[in-house]
């Protein structure tokens, strides 16, 4: 969705102490207590409890049930498929993100702003519709349906469809992290590299890439989290064939609908761990870039 998912912030979080010590910005102690208590209660209710529930429910029936749920063949094949889908779709969007950011930030051309809006488009489309569009193009009744059937190629209710839907919903992640950063960095360093005799590739690898590596990693992490966790879009195109076209989130759904709650939460807990890892890495990168932004920044 446009503007959200927190673009990489290079400024670092300012210290709240600055506001608390200033008599003009200090809140009344009671107001402070009420606001803090309310917001933290809300935070606990809506964010902490759902997260905790995943792990508690996963282990409710004991560790052996937990381990069994993760090691049964259908679970393993769901894990494998999720990894494959991410391994294909993330690099695709990575390459796209770099290409798009390069064209948009290093050159001037008409319609640039419109192009940026189009790149953000998948964030404003419901995941269900993201799945639907590929059914309309590649499904049995779709544009290429008859041709695909004649040539015995399966896209919908098969892995290619899942990959396409995933690529669609994770489309903007890398590009949108890179564009603001590269815009701010300008073109002077690349020009300097060229005046010093670097070839286009040398310029990109030695100057551009090191300058964007953290934002790139940030985009990849967010892209990966969404790719592994996508449910709605994938659910439309997958066909839910156990052991074949089930990703982890779809496997969770099936187990849950079969009232195998502990198993469902066991698989869900893996995805929740992935989410926590994503947040940890995200915070680390934000901390790193904030550090770099401030170290000896005295001109």
């Amino acid at each position: 969705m446009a503007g959200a998912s927190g673009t990489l912030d290079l400024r670092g979080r300012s210290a709240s102490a600055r506001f608390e010590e200033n008599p003009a910005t200090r809140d009344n102690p009671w107001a402070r207590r009420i606001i803090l208590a309310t917001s933290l209660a809300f935070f606990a209710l809506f964010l902490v409890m759902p997260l905790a529930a995943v792990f508690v429910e996963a282990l409710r029936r004991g560790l052996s049930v937990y381990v069994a749920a993760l090691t049964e063949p259908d679970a393993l094949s769901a894990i494998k498929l999720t990894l494959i889908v991410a391994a294909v779709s993330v690099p695709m969007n990575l390459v796209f993100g770099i290409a798009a950011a390069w064209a948009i930030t290093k050159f001037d051309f008409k319609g640039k702003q419109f192009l940026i809006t189009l790149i953000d488009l998948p964030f404003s489309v419901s995941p269900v519709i993201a799945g639907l569009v590929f059914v309309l193009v590649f499904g049995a009744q779709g544009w290429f349906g008859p041709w695909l059937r004649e040539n015995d190629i399966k896209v919908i209710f098969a892995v290619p469809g899942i990959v396409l839907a995933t690529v669609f919903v994770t489309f903007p992640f890398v590009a949108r992290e890179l564009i603001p950063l590269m815009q701010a960095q300008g073109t002077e360093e690349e020009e300097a590299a060229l005046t010093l005799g670097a070839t286009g590739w040398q310029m990109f690898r030695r100057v551009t890439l090191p300058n964007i590596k953290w934002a790139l990693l940030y985009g990849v992490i967010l892209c990966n989290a969404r790719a592994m966790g996508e449910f709605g879009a994938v659910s439309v195109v997958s066909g839910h064939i156990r052991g074949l076209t089930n990703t982890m989130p779809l496997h969770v759904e099936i187990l849950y609908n079969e009232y195998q709650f502990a198993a469902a939460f066991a698989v869900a807990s893996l995805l929740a761990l992935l989410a926590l890892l994503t947040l940890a890495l995200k915070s680390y990168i934000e901390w790193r870039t904030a550090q770099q932004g401030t170290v000896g920044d005295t001109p």
Partner: protein
Amino acid sequence: MVGVQRRILPGFGLSLGFTLAYLSLIVLIPLSAVFLKTATMSAGALWEAISAPRVVATYRLSFGASLLAAAVNVVFGLMLAWSLVRYSFPGRKLVDALIDLPFALPTAVAGISLTALYAKNGWLGQYLEPLGIKIAFTPTGVLVALIFIGLPFVVRTVQPVLEDLEAEVEEAAASLGASRWQTVIRVVLPALLPALLTGFALAFARAVGEYGSVIFIAGNLPMVSEITPLIIITKLEQYDYAGATAVASVMLVFSFVLLLLINLLQEWTRRSARKVS
């Protein structure tokens, strides 16, 4: 000016060409399929598909619950952003990092987890049920799920604006004799208004299209707790491609209008942020 002009930095043609081709193949052409398919329907059939009572009931729930959830998030999101920027308290960094959980947690996981909390015998449900409050498998459950997934949008749009707000503005207000309350209401909140509206619109747009976290807790009763994305899937499962596509195009048109609105709001946020600082 795409074309003849020679450029110094390499790779313009390649990168823009690849960008446009990839964008068209993955996003634009597939999306156009929705409208092309809808265009083949007769006006009568289209109208019937998008205005059937059961479909209209889903609009009412999807849009109503999304608006309400976004409004709840504006209030509590603002308080959370305020706490994170203005107050120091133990665990602030951890809270800050966890705000993005709804972005990172797969929606299906959020869905089953919220259901476990609010079901009749769940962690919270067991206390609420005796009070006559039913949440899971009712429209209220839909609201709860949409609050969950929309929360970071408001916090993350308001937070940076609040951080960039110069203390001097509030110092000036105080020096002119304003009480703290007057300063907040008349000086700080107006400066945050564009960001709050943007956050509201983003949370709303996300909520309208949300599927995974809702379907587990909603109960999905036709006419009562069925959301629009679900009706698309239901129609698909009944091989009613035309009907599914018709409803999808209604949602798409709505999303595009909302996207336009959000872009305008963000432009406003940027401009007013400049003006204030």
